[in-house]
């Protein structure tokens, strides 16, 4: 059965380690199963799904910049971004933040997930990664790449700018937009998230400045000698680098705000609960669970009025048999 399942969980015990050795996850007690499913299962799904959607967005957004340029270079395949910087873009500057997001992000806290098992349904219904979310993400990527290309294009249109000097602000702008998009996706910020985002952005400038200061005759046809340094001393560069990410991300921010206000999904409601202070949070969870249950029998009413204690797993361990038993009698 463990082999046949999508995910097999083995419980190590006295009967031997055979189940453990053939499983994907191994736990030592039955009671750990609850946290494994409700908390880690939910987090795994949410992180992986959103990370994959983000990777699709990132690549569509970046490569489309090169596509829009083809309309202006006779479709000959010239790229306005130096190809080492292109490679480093995906390799160094935008690879760490989504990885950290995929490892550490928590969209809903563990306590809320344990207290509200209905939230597990979001994973079963593929709410994070379905046709709709995928296509919205791709359309968003197209829009953002349009903005990231055409605002610099319209700014520099009739001027005397050269190919690779045009590519530098575009590269910087798309990096800023992509990293800010990631920042908007992150629900909980730890010190690692902050360091990785800021570090990626700073590393781009450091690498770019060093590369552009050393390479006089190394990378034909680019030879980006002093291009970045020249751009950093040009006020137009800063002006475009400010307005373009703002314009590119505004619809997404708007959409997320609307969703936050009017969204009806369980996940959003749970996230709102998480933002409340501790005591209000317990009351909210209580009223949610009351709404889920039918008219309670008097003895059970005593159980449900027991306030949900906060955090440590040991307390839930003590509490869970009591709180889950009424549901058996539904």
């Amino acid at each position: 059965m463990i082999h046949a399942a999508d995910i097999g969980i083995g419980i190590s015990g006295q009967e031997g380690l055979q189940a453990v050795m053939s499983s994907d996850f191994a736990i030592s007690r039955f009671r750990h199963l609850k946290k494994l499913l409700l908390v880690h299962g939910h987090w795994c799904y949410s992180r992986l799904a959103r990370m994959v959607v983000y990777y699709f967005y990132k690549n569509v957004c970046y490569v489309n910049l090169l596509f829009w340029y083809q309309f202006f270079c006779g479709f000959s395949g010239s790229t306005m971004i130096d190809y080492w910087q292109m490679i480093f873009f995906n390799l160094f500057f935008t690879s760490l933040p989504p990885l950290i997001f995929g490892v550490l992000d928590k969209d809903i806290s563990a306590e809320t997930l344990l207290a509200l098992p209905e939230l597990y349904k979001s994973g079963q219904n593929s709410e994070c990664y379905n046709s709709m979310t995928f296509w919205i993400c791709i359309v968003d990527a197209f829009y953002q790449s349009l903005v990231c290309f055409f605002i610099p294009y319209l700014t520099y249109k009739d001027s005397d700018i050269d190919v690779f000097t045009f590519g530098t602000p575009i590269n910087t702008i798309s990096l800023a937009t992509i990293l800010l998009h990631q920042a908007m996706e992150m629900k909980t910020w730890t010190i690692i998230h902050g360091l990785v985002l800021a570090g990626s952005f700073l590393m781009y400038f450091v690498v770019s400045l060093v590369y552009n200061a050393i390479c006089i005759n190394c990378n034909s046809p680019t030879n980006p000698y002093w291009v970045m340094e020249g751009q950093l001393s040009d006020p137009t560069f800063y002006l475009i680098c400010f307005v373009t990410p703002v314009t590119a991300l505004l619809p997404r921010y708007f959409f997320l705000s609307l969703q936050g206000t009017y969204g009806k999904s369980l996940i959003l409601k749970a996230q709102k609960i998480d933002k409340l202070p501790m005591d209000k949070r317990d009351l909210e969870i209580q009223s949610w669970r009351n709404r889920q249950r039918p008219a309670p029998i008097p003895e059970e009413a005593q159980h449900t009025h027991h306030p949900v204690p906060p955090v440590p797993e040991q307390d839930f361990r003590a509490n869970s048999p009591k709180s889950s038993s009424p549901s058996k009698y539904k």
Partner: protein
Amino acid sequence: MSQKYNPITWRTKMKKTSQICQSKLPDNTALKQQQLPAYRLQLSATGVLSGFFATGAFCLGVGIILILSAKSIKEIEIKYTKICANCAELREDAINFDKECTCSIPFYLSETMQGNVYLYYKLYGFYQNLYRYILSRSNSQLVGTDLKVRLYLIWYNTPFFKDQSHNGTPIAPCGAIANSIFNDTIILSYNLNSSIHMEVPMLRSGITWWTDKYVKFRNPSAINLSSAFTGTAKPPYWSKPVYELDLEDTENNGFLNDDFIVWMRTAAFPTFKKLYRRLNRVQYFIEGLPAGNYSFNITYNFPVTRFKGEKSVVLSTLTWSGGSSLFLGLAYTVTGSSLPGRNYRLSNNC
């Protein structure tokens, strides 16, 4: 051997197993237990509202400043392909390469152009950003290390790398970019009155990037320039070899010629302008270009009609924000006015 269940042995075995199990537990650190101190972004309505208002006000302010500064730039552009139609027709046939053709375009400047004035030539429909065109150069030759282009890695640019009519001598400077250099001469003259015409003094220097002129482009070292270029040939479309580009100024001759360097910086779009000359603010033109009658005398050499392109000449002043494009100012103004418009829908950001 006794198969009987011995409780004491079982208890010690469980203790040992639990000790072994203890060592397999992941460390109880904040990172591994996912208990790192975390901050959940709490966007309060007042915080976000004030942020949006501040950003909106900033964008609006910057937008207005940019529009005003773009409006203060004076620019005049004259397309001369149609005006000099006879020259254009002459140049359509390469047989006429040695026939000189000049063209005079009078115009009237209604306002004084104050400050530094720059003269550009502008091309329409010339794709300097075509992929094979961009590749068609040898940077090691231009930097002075590999004059005879012994190691060229680009294999499909042979027409402009070796001169087939002269036993395959290497061309200096090689490549299609150098070969297609813009070779019109544009002279601006000021008509003080019907009898006095004076040529407006222009500077040929200082129109390139400093790093281009002093780092990326170097002449091969020798006592005199023409001997440095022995063993090479001039590009097919050029009328004189590279060491005769400016015989008056050695700093502007050979690969260091400013017009050559400006042309070698391939433009990003098919419609582009390149700096040609700067006003030399001396004598009569100390304040800039005074209002009055002017004329351009152009020696028409560069053929554009075959690819339906156009040429024009542009006189412009500049400000800190670049050229006369209104776009950035408009973008800022629009963003600045639309940002506060979105703020009332804000609540919790999900």
